[in-house]
């Protein structure tokens, strides 16, 4: 992957000037390439990674395995895209194995998520079955540990 993207993926707030220094490239070129990536839709947005467990929010996340029937035209894409458009669905992936789609669905309460599954998701044409698991705690997300690592234990001066 382009090193520029790696840097942004690790920290989207990295200043353009600093990126230019790290890659030993002119600032103009960095700006231009980022603009291109945004235009092409390779970069689809910039978000903060939150440790939501710390916020004490009234919120429930469910991980839902869904079996679907692929459609004659469009295969899995048509049904997957239809499901993905619900704002409750935070992420959706096509999987290999015993089920087809893996969804991360958010709601304020257990009842709300259950309602989404029974009233919106299950009745969709092509959805054969669902299996819902409620998430209890997040340890790591997007490659970031949710628990802070210990302080630097190195001696302050070493040979």
């Amino acid at each position: 992957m382009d090193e520029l993207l790696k840097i942004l993926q690790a920290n989207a707030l990295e200043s353009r000037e600093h990126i230019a220094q790290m890659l030993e490239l002119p600032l103009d070129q960095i700006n231009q390439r980022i603009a291109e990536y945004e235009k092409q839709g390779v970069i689809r947005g910039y978000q903060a990674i939150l440790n939501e467990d710390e916020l004490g929010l009234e919120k429930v996340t469910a991980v839902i395995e869904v079996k679907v029937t692929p459609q004659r035209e469009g295969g899995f894409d048509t049904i997957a895209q239809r499901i993905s458009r619900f704002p409750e669905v935070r992420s959706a992936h096509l999987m290999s194995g015993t089920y087809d789609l893996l969804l991360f669905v958010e709601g304020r309460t257990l009842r709300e998520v259950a309602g989404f599954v029974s009233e919106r998701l299950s009745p969709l044409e092509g959805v054969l079955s669902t299996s819902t698991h409620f998430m209890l705690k997040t340890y790591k997300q997007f490659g970031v540990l949710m628990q802070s690592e210990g302080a630097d234990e190195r001696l302050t001066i070493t040979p």
Partner: protein
Amino acid sequence: MSGSPSLRNRLSTTVRDLPRSGIRDFFDIVSTMKDVISLGIGEPDFDTPWHVRESTVFALERGATHYTSNLGYLELRRALAAYVRKVFGAEYNPDDEILVTVGVSEALDLALRALLNPGDEVLYHEPCYVSYRATIVLARGVPLPVESRAQNGFRLTRAMLEAKATPRTKVLMLNFPNNPTGAVMDRGDLEEIAAFAVERDLIVITDEIYGELTYDRPHTSIASLPGLRDRTIFLHGFSKAWAMTGFRLGYACGPAELVEAMMKIHQYTMLCASSLSQKAALEALSRPETDIGEMVEEYRRRRNFIATALAAMGLECHRPLGAFYAFPSVAKFGLSSRDFALKLLGQEKVAVVPGTAFGNCGEGFIRCAYATSMDQLKEAMVRLGRFVEGLGRSRGPAH
């Protein structure tokens, strides 16, 4: 100095006359202060790769807690032979040409003690790692430092060695990529040195602990050059490339006669390297490209940043090509390296190591390690820039 003078008189004169490491002295000052950003740390800020740590725990559970063969686990030596062949281009027989040691420091000590008779001379280059001179002296050898220079990218030339060598010179010690200068030697540079070693029938000890950490060109090992393998002791370890300093695991590769001699000292003094560290090393060798690749990329970005930042504040610095050190000159401010470092520490709370800790010819330079997070590095460069600007102003045009 505290302590009884009579006890001091009973110390070995060699040890008594050995100076304390300049780095130790500086550490004592820095450790009394709070909130210091340290560019003085000669070890990676990365964590040891998790698979290595996890498998060390597993090895402990499984009971790998006994003595190992003096040379080290055979399985590990086999993996080392394969790694050294692939990465450094030199062939060693795992049965009798590889010795696993407690860090490269032990390996270096063993090599010198195995080779030197009292009075034998060892050619080495300064500025260099803090232990070289002391290790030579403790092995009853005579240190012959060759001064490498910034104008020459801190590389060695044949002429520099010729000017110092005498008929009593027995060993040539090399360390590239270099701590503290970040210098590397290309194949052509090494060929010149290799020819000299062959001509003078020198044994070469090459400390290539930073061998994986080069940023512009791949590393060449002198042990891989034609005719050099059989007169070379190649030293390497896991501290830098795998961020495993605390595991204390190194190794020496060389002709069987030399490894056997080193093993004799090792078996009487150390017996074997830690069994757990050896298991960890074996795991580390299972996927070196992934582990090291990402760290090298990050070090390269930091190197680029620090080189740009030093240049922007007007500090002359040869381009660091390997290891994780920049070694800029501060001579123009008219302060000694030590005074510069002390003043910087006092005013801006940034710790660097005075060049003199690495030999007298390090005067006029400071070592800035970039094995620290980018955030810290950025802040350190802001502070160093402010400090340097202040010094420039206070000197004024009258000077």
